C-alpha cells in the first residue's frame, strides 16, 4: 500500500468515524447559526431606529472605493484611467446593528482581558456559566443516550436548587462556627440534597414513561411549569421560606461556610474553581460509566435498540427509570452548584440552564466529554450576552435565537453530508444524529 493510499484510507476512516463526523457537523452547524444570526441582526437593525448606521453594506464596498486606490494609486489609475474607477458606492444600505461588533462583544467580550488577567470578572462569569451548563448538558446527554428526551432538566435543576437552598438554611447556621470543617460537611450535603431532589423529580416522568407509556417530552415540559410554580409558591410567602428582610422572592442567605470557596477569584465574581473541577470530574465519571460499566452498556443499548437490549437481558423499564433518575440527579446537582456557587440562596427566576443544556448536549453529540467543550462555548455565549447588553443596543435574547438555530442545524446532519458529498467523496447516508440507532443495515434478503 502506497503512502498516499494509506493516508487516504486513514482519512476515510477518520471521516467515517462518527465522533469526527459529529464534530464536523457540530462545527458546521455552529458556523451556519452564527451566519444566520448575523442576518437576523442585520434584519433587526433595519426594523429599529437609530441616529446613524452602525453598519453599512455598500456595493462596491469600501475596500474597492477607498482602500484599494489608497494602497496602490498608480495601479488603479493605470488600469482604469479617466475616472472609471468607482469613487463611491453605487448602492448602500445602513443598519442600526453591526453583526461583527455584536459577535466581537459576544465571543471575545466573554473572555475579558484573559491573557493579561485570567481572573478578570467577565471570564469568571464565563467559567461559572460553563460549570452549571456542564451539569445540565451531561444530564440531557445521559438521558439522550438512553433514547429519552429529558426536556425537564430545567425543572429538575429548579427543584434541586430549591431543596439545597431551603434545607441548608436550617442546617447551615448552627454549623457556621466550625469553619472549614463545616464546609467539608455542608458542601457535599448541599450537592447531595440537590441530586436526590432532582433525581426524584425526574424519576416521576421516568416511571410514567416506563410503566404507563406517557410521552416523556410532554410530561417533563409540564413538570417544568409545575416546578417553577411550586418554587414561586414556597419562596414568595414568609410563612414558608421567603426571606422576610428582602423584597425579592428568595430564601435567606446561606452562611459563607456552606458555599463553594472562591479561592483565586474574587468572592463577588460568584465563581469557584473547586466547583469547576468537580464538574470536570463528573463529566469524566459519566463518560467512564457509559463506556466501561455494565450499567452504561445497558443504557446505551436501550437507547440505540430497545429490542436488542431486551434480548441482551436488559430490563427496559428499570433502565428507563434509572437513566432518568441519574439525569435528574445531575441536573439537581447543577441546581445545587448554582445555589452554592452563584446565588448563595435560592431565588425565583432561574435562567434557562436546562434548555441550554439540551443545546449543549446535542452540540456535543451526547458525548459527556464533548459536553465540556460545548458547555464552554455556551458559557461564552451566556456571559457574552451580558457584554452585548451593556455594550450595544442589540437585545441579549439573541443568544436564545442562536440556541434554537444550533439545535435545528445539528439535527439535520443530512444537510451537511449532502454539502460534504458535493465537495468530496466522504460521508454516508445515515441516521438522524439524535439517539435512535439502528435503522438500515446490510440485509441481503
Amino acid at each position: 500500500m502506497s503512502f498516499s493510499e494509506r493516508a487516504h484510507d486513514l482519512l476515510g476512516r477518520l471521516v467515517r468515524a462518527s465522533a469526527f463526523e459529529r464534530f464536523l457537523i457540530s462545527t458546521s452547524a455552529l458556523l451556519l447559526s452564527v451566519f444566520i444570526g448575523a442576518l437576523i441582526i442585520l434584519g433587526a437593525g433595519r426594523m429599529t431606529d437609530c441616529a446613524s448606521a452602525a453598519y453599512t453594506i455598500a456595493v462596491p464596498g469600501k475596500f474597492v472605493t477607498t482602500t484599494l486606490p489608497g494602497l496602490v494609486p498608480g495601479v488603479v489609475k493605470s488600469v482604469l484611467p479617466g475616472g472609471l474607477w468607482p469613487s463611491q458606492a453605487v448602492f448602500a444600505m445602513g443598519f442600526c446593528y453591526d453583526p461583527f461588533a455584536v459577535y466581537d462583544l459576544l465571543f471575545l467580550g466573554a473572555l475579558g482581558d484573559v491573557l493579561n488577567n485570567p481572573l478578570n470578572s467577565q471570564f469568571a462569569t464565563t467559567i461559572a456559566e460553563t460549570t452549571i451548563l456542564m451539569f445540565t448538558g451531561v444530564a440531557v446527554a445521559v438521558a439522550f443516550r438512553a433514547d429519552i428526551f429529558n426536556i425537564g432538566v430545567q425543572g429538575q435543576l429548579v427543584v434541586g436548587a430549591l431543596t439545597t437552598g431551603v434545607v441548608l438554611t436550617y442546617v447551615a447556621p448552627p454549623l457556621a462556627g466550625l469553619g472549614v470543617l463545616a464546609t467539608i460537611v455542608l458542601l457535599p450535603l448541599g450537592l447531595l440534597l440537590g441530586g436526590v431532589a432532582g433525581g426524584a423529580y425526574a424519576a416521576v416522568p421516568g416511571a410514567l414513561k416506563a410503566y404507563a407509556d406517557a410521552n416523556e417530552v410532554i410530561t417533563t415540559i409540564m413538570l417544568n411549569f409545575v416546578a417553577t410554580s411550586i418554587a414561586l409558591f414556597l419562596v414568595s410567602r414568609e410563612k414558608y421560606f421567603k426571606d422576610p428582610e428582602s423584597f425579592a422572592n428568595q430564601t435567606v442567605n446561606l452562611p459563607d461556610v456552606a458555599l463553594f470557596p472562591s479561592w483565586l477569584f474574587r468572592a463577588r465574581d460568584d465563581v469557584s474553581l473547586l466547583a469547576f473541577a468537580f464538574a470536570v470530574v463528573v463529566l469524566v465519571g459519566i463518560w467512564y460509566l457509559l463506556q466501561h460499566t455494565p450499567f452504561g452498556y445497558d443504557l446505551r443499548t436501550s437507547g440505540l435498540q430497545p429490542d436488542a437490549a431486551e434480548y441482551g437481558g436488559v430490563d427496559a423499564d428499570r433502565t428507563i427509570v434509572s437513566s432518568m433518575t441519574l439525569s435528574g440527579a445531575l441536573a439537581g446537582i447543577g441546581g445545587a452548584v448554582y445555589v452554592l456557587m452563584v446565588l448563595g440562596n435560592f431565588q425565583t427566576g432561574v435562567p434557562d440552564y436546562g434548555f441550554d443544556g439540551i443545546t449543549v448536549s446535542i452540540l456535543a453529540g451526547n458525548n459527556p466529554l464533548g459536553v465540556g467543550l460545548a458547555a464552554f462555548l455556551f458559557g461564552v455565549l451566556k456571559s457574552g450576552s451580558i457584554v452585548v447588553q451593556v455594550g450595544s443596543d442589540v437585545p441579549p435574547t439573541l443568544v436564545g435565537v442562536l440556541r434554537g438555530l444550533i439545535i435545528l442545524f445539528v439535527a439535520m446532519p443530512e444537510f451537511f453530508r449532502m454539502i460534504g458529498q458535493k465537495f468530496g467523496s466522504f460521508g454516508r447516508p445515515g441516521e438522524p444524529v439524535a439517539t435512535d440507532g439502528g435503522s438500515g443495515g446490510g440485509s441481503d434478503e
Partner: protein
Amino acid sequence: MTQTDTAVRLEDITKRFPGVVANDNVDLPVERGSVHALLGENGAGKTTLMNVLYGLYQPDSGRIVVDGEERDFASPRDAIDAGIGMIHQHFMLVDTMTVAENIALGNEPRKWGGLAVDREAARRDVVELSERYGFDVDPDKTIADVSVGVQQRVEILKALYRGADVLILDEPTAVLTPQEVEDLFDVLDELTDQGKTVIFITHKLGEAMHAADDVTVLRDGKNVGTVDADETTREELAELMVGREVVLDVESTPPDVGDTVLDVDALSVLDDREVPAVTDVSFVVREGEVFGVAGVDGNGQAELVEAVTGLRDPEAGSVEFDGRDVTDAPRRDRIDSGMAYIPEDRQERGLVMDFDLVENGILGSQHGAPFASGGTIDWDASRTHAEDIVEEYDVRPPDADTEAVALSGGNQQKFIVGREFERDPRLVVATHPTRGVDIGSQEFIHDRLLELRDEGRGVLLVSSKLDEVQGLSDRLAVMHDGDVMAVVDPDEIDEEELGLLMAGEYPEGYEPRSERDAEGVAQ
C-alpha cells in the same frame, strides 16, 4: 412468436447498490397470458429486478420494453400507467383503512368537483371487480380485521383497479398456509385465463414448477437460465439456483439423549394484538437432542420462542429450564443460567447495529464474568472474544472494529450464531439459524449445531425451511394456528404428510400421536 406475444421484456438490466451489483445484465422476456416464475435464493436480485420494472428503482443501464414499446419508469406511477402492478411481500396496505379505501388509494373517484371522495362509487367498483375474478372480499372491512389471504387478494384487486395487465407478486406464498397457496394458484389461473400476465418471485422450487409456465432462475444478480416449467426437473432448477449440486441431507448420528433441559407445559401466549398466538402447547427438549419445530411462518412459533426465552410473558402454563421454573423469571436469568438464543430478527434483536463487533460480542454477557467484573467491563477480553468468533465463524470483513450495520446479512447471522454457540450453553434456541447465509456457511452452522448436540446440549430448532428442520431434528413438532399438531419422527414422515399437518389437517388414517409422545418423553 410475434412482438405482441411478449407482454414485458427486460433487456440488459444492470442495477448497482453501494458495494453490490444487484442485477448484472439481466434479460427477461415474459409471454402474455402466462405465469412466469422468477426463482432464486435470497439475495439473488429477484426483488430488485422487479422493483426496477415497477419504477421503484431506476436501472443503471438496460431497457424496459412493455407491449413492444421502450419505457422509462421514473416512479411507480409511470409503471402503473403502463399497466404494471406489483404485490409486495410486505403488503402495502393501510391497516386502519377499509378494503375499498385501500384499493382506491391514490385513484379515488371524486365528486363535488373533486372536493370529496365518492365513496359509493369506490365501493361499487370494488364489488364489481372482485366478482369478475371470483374474489370473496368485503369492501367495508378494515384491513386489520381480515386474514392474510384476504389481504393478499386486496393487493391483487388494488393492482387490477389501477388497470394492471401485468401483475408482479413478490414471494406471495411466504405468509400463506398450503391451502391458501392452492387458492392463490387458482386465482393466478383465473387471471391468466382473462388475459393478464403474472410474474411471481419465489425461492421455492416446487412452487415455481407447479404454478408457472416459464421459470427464470437468477443467481448472484445474473440470469442463469429461462426454462419451460413442464420440461425441467427439480434437480436442474436446484443446480441452476446454487450453482452446484446440493446435498440436502445432513449427516447425523442417532442421538444420545440425557436429562430434560427444557420442559414447556401447557403454555399459552398472546401476540402483540393480545390475540392468542400459542394455545396450550407442551413439549420437552432433552440433553443431546435436536427438537425441531416446523410450520408456516406466523403460526405461533415466534411467540412460543419468545415465551421460552423470556422475551414475552406467557398467558398460562409454565416453562422449566434445567429443572427450575423460569416462567416468570426475567430474561437475564435465563441467559445467566445457560440458554443461548439465535433470534429470528437479527437486525432488531440479535445485534446492536451501531455497535462494533467487540461490543456486540458481549451482548447478553455484559453483566458478569468473564467480560465484566467489579462493575467494569473488560474490553480487552471482549475484543479477544469477538476476534475469535470472527475467525472461527468466517465473518467478513474479518475486523472486530467493524460496526454491525456494515456487515452483510449473512455475516451478521454468522456472528450471532458464533456468539451464541460459544456461550457454553445448556440449551440452544435457534430460530432460522441459516437464514440469508451462503451455502458453505450453512453447512458449517449445521455441523456446529450437531456438534453441540453431540456434546450433550439441548437444541430447540425453529425453521421454516423444511429440509433444514427435517434433516437436523431428532424429533419434530409441527405447529399450526398456535397448536402443536403432532410430534413426529422426521425420518419417517413424508413431505405430503408434513404439508397436511402444517395446514392443520391430519393425513388420512393418521393417528394423532403428539400427546402419547409428549407423555412418553416426560416420564
